[in-house]
């Protein structure tokens, strides 16, 4: 029964996310899913507590639901921003020639799409035709650098660069 409860609550979270993403309300897709996913996760915990108390079933239900939510967020952010994912999605609808791939994934348009997205998310600011990083963008860059240092991805020149 606990497994069924997890499936039902996760399906409800996906449905609620699909609905909220189509409503004219503020917040990006990740925030919207975190909101509905947390609310339904709270509901799942309440149901499992009522049915099983503090038990192995409660912990298993929470772990499974949290994993499913994290995987879903990973997959839709991947579909949103990854070039590989985009290519797979496009090829799933129709085959393409190398020339079509080169045209569609032209570097200049990829760069301008990414810049546009960074402007929309408030990480870059557009003043006239000039692009500048915002304070939020600089904070994110510092977070990236901290992560790079942590995972040992820093190249010798990286610390001087940023």
């Amino acid at each position, binding site marked *: 029964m606990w497994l069924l409860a997890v499936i039902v609550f996760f399906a409800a979270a996906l449905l609620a996310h699909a609905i909220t993403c189509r409503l004219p309300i503020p917040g990006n897709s990740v925030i919207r899913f975190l909101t509905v996913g947390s609310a339904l996760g709270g509901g799942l915990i309440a149901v499992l507590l009522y049915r099983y108390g503090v038990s192995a079933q409660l912990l298993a239900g929470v772990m499974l639901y949290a994993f499913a939510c994290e995987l879903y967020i990973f997959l839709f952010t991947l579909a949103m921003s990854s070039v590989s994912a985009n290519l797979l999605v496009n090829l799933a609808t129709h085959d393409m020639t190398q020339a079509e791939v080169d045209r569609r994934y032209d570097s200049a348009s*990829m760069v301008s799409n990414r810049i546009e997205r960074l402007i929309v998310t408030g990480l870059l600011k557009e003043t006239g035709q000039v692009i500048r990083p915002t304070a939020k963008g600089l904070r994110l*860059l510092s977070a990236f650098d901290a992560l790079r240092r942590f995972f040992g991805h820093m190249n010798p020149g990286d610390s001087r660069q940023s």
Partner: protein
Amino acid sequence: MSAERTYFILYALVVAYLCGHFAAYLLFFRHRGRLSTERSVFRYHFVSACLLSLAAILGVIRNPGDAAIATAIGVIFAHGIYSLSFLELWTLSQISYSREILLLAKLRGQFAKNAPPPELTRVGDSKKNDRFESLCRLKLLRHDGEVIKLTLPGRLIGNTLRAIAWLAHLKATG
């Protein structure tokens, strides 16, 4: 000892195991080039998840019951949460294109929107080629003469991502 208490001790042991796995990465692998590629980091987590899953399944076989099955599923997915979080952060910090753009904007102070620096175009080119080669190496794409087609696993992944993009109402991807 009650059955519930036993299962909570098992969870505590799994948390200790995951902390040990993380500590081993920090102490022995992080700066020594042993786990410097996406593939090797993935393998490090995959092997650990397989070992834990095997132990959980053996535990259920030795001591069958609803709570034992729930505990086995719970600890396997606890490892899943840990590994997925780790791999996401590892990959994001290594290859993020957004980081490259933000870094260049910071270093230059500003740049023209309609004429982005050539460094970014070069990064875009190399990322595109890398991704294309990776998808071919993973046998998700294949060339059929001039035409590029998806293999069966590629089509499965492509359609799954398409369904997810529809669900999350993503207008533009990539």
